[in-house]
């Protein structure tokens, strides 16, 4: 027989209930939003990219802006200083007397802010401040002013304070078109605190600009995450749908990205799976049909053989001993073969889902007694019954007869006397009334290893026993019959020894009253 993922019928109520919440629970957990799921990671990656680009842009912009700002400040300072200086007049040689007054005039008119002005001429050193010589002016600036005679400036940071220093050599006109250096060089030294503040403000502005940028980046990030997550969600739904048996599940393929490839691959795999499963199903159906056909074909010859077994049995006494034994053997085995074929037919009907329930409202105790009677077990002292009167249920009498007969027969064959048939009704956990039939024996019980397989077809609990009087299909047919009644059957062992088979069939009060 080919084992296939056929919807498994519940064999034991206990195990069935245990299976129930199992697969559902993790899936519910999976569907929750995860703190570090794909969405979060995508958002984080997007924000990182946005932060890097916004930061870099801010940094570059800031640098440009700062340079422009400084350049403006410096250019303003230099040109202002030059303008101021050009408005001054000097006698040559420059006399130290009165020079400081001119320098202080110059210092007051500094732009964008007051500066300290230093003058150097020959050996004359003077300033608008307290020290005649500045400690900020570098030799490089001095050389540029004296040797190259260019107006020049230099930013100097001293003790954390930025200064702008300007060196301005002076010339005077000797004619309309000619000038001559005076030898006088004027220096201006200006603290750049205001510019520092401007720069700081710029920095803050850049930072503030980057944060809204990040916030704006969230929107495309969420959209991107959605566009990625939607196919993933579809994939998950499809996988779950496949898992629940809908093998024709396919995912719509959108676009041509990696996710579309994934969907394609999923669809291909699903197609292959569907094909191989349908092949297996066909193979299984063929096997079932074969079993059914074989038993059908066996029935015709068996019909002839079974009709003459009586003749054989009657005449065997008149034959010599060996022939008689052979004849009786053929007769007995023919009978067993007929039972086996009948059971195979019954199983085939279940497999083909051709088995129908022909229910009648019956007195259950009466039905059980009748079953025992027709099997000539009614007066058997190995069998005890506890059958309360008045239990009525809607059952298929023929199938219920098979269930009881198989269970009792099985107990008599494999268990030990006394065999007890116990009938009762009880309320199930869901509140409905359940018909319970228990068949117990006092035998050795069922080996633990055999319990899961006890309802399998042709399963022999005792490996040493190669043949049993039954067909090997009795319990399998019993299971199918109980299942057809929406009932459950389970096998177990009693604490004191012996096997117990419990059949539970729900009582449908509303149907019975109709």
């Amino acid at each position, binding site marked *: 027989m080919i084992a296939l993922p056929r919807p498994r019928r519940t064999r034991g109520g206990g195990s069935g209930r245990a299976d129930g919440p199992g697969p559902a629970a993790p899936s519910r957990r999976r569907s929750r939003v995860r703190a570090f799921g794909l969405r979060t990671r995508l958002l984080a990656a997007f924000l990182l990219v946005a932060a890097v680009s916004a930061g870099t842009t801010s*940094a570059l912009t800031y640098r440009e802006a700062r340079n422009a700002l400084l350049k403006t400040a410096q250019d303003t300072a230099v040109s202002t200083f030059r303008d101021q200086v050009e408005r001054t007049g000097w006698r040559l040689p420059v006399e130290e007397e009165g020079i400081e007054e001119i320098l202080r005039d110059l210092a007051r008119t500094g732009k964008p802010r007051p500066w300290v002005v230093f003058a150097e001429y020959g050996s004359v050193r003077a300033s608008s401040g307290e020290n005649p010589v500045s400690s900020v002016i570098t030799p490089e600036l001095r050389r540029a002013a004296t040797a190259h*005679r*260019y*107006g*020049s400036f230099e930013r100097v*940071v001293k003790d954390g304070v930025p200064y702008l220093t300007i060196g301005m050599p002076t*010339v005077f006109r000797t004619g309309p078109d000619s*000038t*001559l250096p005076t030898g*006088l060089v004027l220096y201006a030294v200006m603290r750049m605190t205001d510019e520092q503040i401007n720069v700081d403000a710029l920095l803050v502005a850049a930072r503030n600009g980057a944060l809204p940028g990040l916030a704006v980046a969230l929107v495309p990030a969420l959209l991107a995450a959605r566009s990625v997550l939607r196919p993933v969600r579809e994939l998950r739904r499809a996988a779950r749908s496949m898992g629940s048996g809908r093998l024709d599940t396919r995912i719509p393929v959108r676009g041509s990205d990696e996710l579309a490839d994934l969907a394609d691959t999923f669809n291909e795999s699903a197609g292959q799976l569907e094909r191989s499963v349908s092949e297996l199903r066909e193979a299984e159906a063929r096997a079932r049909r074969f079993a059914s056909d074989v038993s059908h074909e066996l029935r015709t010859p068996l019909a002839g053989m079974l009709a003459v077994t009586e003749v054989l049995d009657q005449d065997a006494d008149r034959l010599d001993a060996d022939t008689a034994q052979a004849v009786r053997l053929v007769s007995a085995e023919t009978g067993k073969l007929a039972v086996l074929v009948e059971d195979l037919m019954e199983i085939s009907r279940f497999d083909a889902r051709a088995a129908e329930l022909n229910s009648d409202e019956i007195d259950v105790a009466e039905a059980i007694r009748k079953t025992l009677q027709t099997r000539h077990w009614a007066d058997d002292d190995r069998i005890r019954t506890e059958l309360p009167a008045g239990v009525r249920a809607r059952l298929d009498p023929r199938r219920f007869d098979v269930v009881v007969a198989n269970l009792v027969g099985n107990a008599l064959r494999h268990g030990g006397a006394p065999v007890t048939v116990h009938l009762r009704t009880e309320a199930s956990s869901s509140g409905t009334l359940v018909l319970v039939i228990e068949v117990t024996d006092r035998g050795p019980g069922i080996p633990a290893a055999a319990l899961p397989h006890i309802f399998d077809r042709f399963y022999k609990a005792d490996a040493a026993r190669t043949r049993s009087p039954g067909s090997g299909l009795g319990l399998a047919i019993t299971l199918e019959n109980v299942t057809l009644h929406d009932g459950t059957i389970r096998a177990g062992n009693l604490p004191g020894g012996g096997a117990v088979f419990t059949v539970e069939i729900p009582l449908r009060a509303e149907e019975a009253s109709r």
Partner: protein
Amino acid sequence: MRRTGWRGAEMRRTGWRGLATAVVAAVGVPLVGGCGIQDSDVVEAGGPATVEAFLNRDADMLLFFRSPDGGVSAVIREARPSAGFGDEYIEPGAVTRDPSGPAGPAPTEKVVLALLAGPGEADRAAGLTTALPAVRAKEAVQVEVSSDGGVTARLPLAVQGLDATAVRQLTCTIAYNQAEDGRGVVTLRGQDGAERSGSCGLTPGSPG
């Protein structure tokens, strides 16, 4: 990073810390690195400033003396001193051209003699000195202007032994006396018969 990096709690923390570091590094470094105002090199920003020196070419003369930094500096001195000022500079005998003529540049001979007389009190106060030797003879300066504009000066001193600053003092003084742009070539001829030629070359760029 391990593939399970995002899964386990431990790995997860490391992952996020790494991410945070990356963000700070990516955003912070360029910002912090470019913060504030830095030192700069010396940046040239145009020519020198032109100041008023009150030069009157008709009344003043330009003399060049040695400044403390080794260069030469021009001083402006009145050629015709007002009353009570600079009597010692007047050398009537040296004036060959019309001494009482209309206003004009002072005679070059007189200017050279004034230079040779050395820096005045004010000049010395400003640290100006002269590289020229002291000269006693007062008549020995002769200036000739050739047809091509060149000037030749005969000097009452030995030209051979003069240093570069001294030659420059003489050249510039004579050149600026001859022309307002001071571009002419000056030839110095000394008592020793030696000759040295050159131009002043003090013009800083040419603003005009």
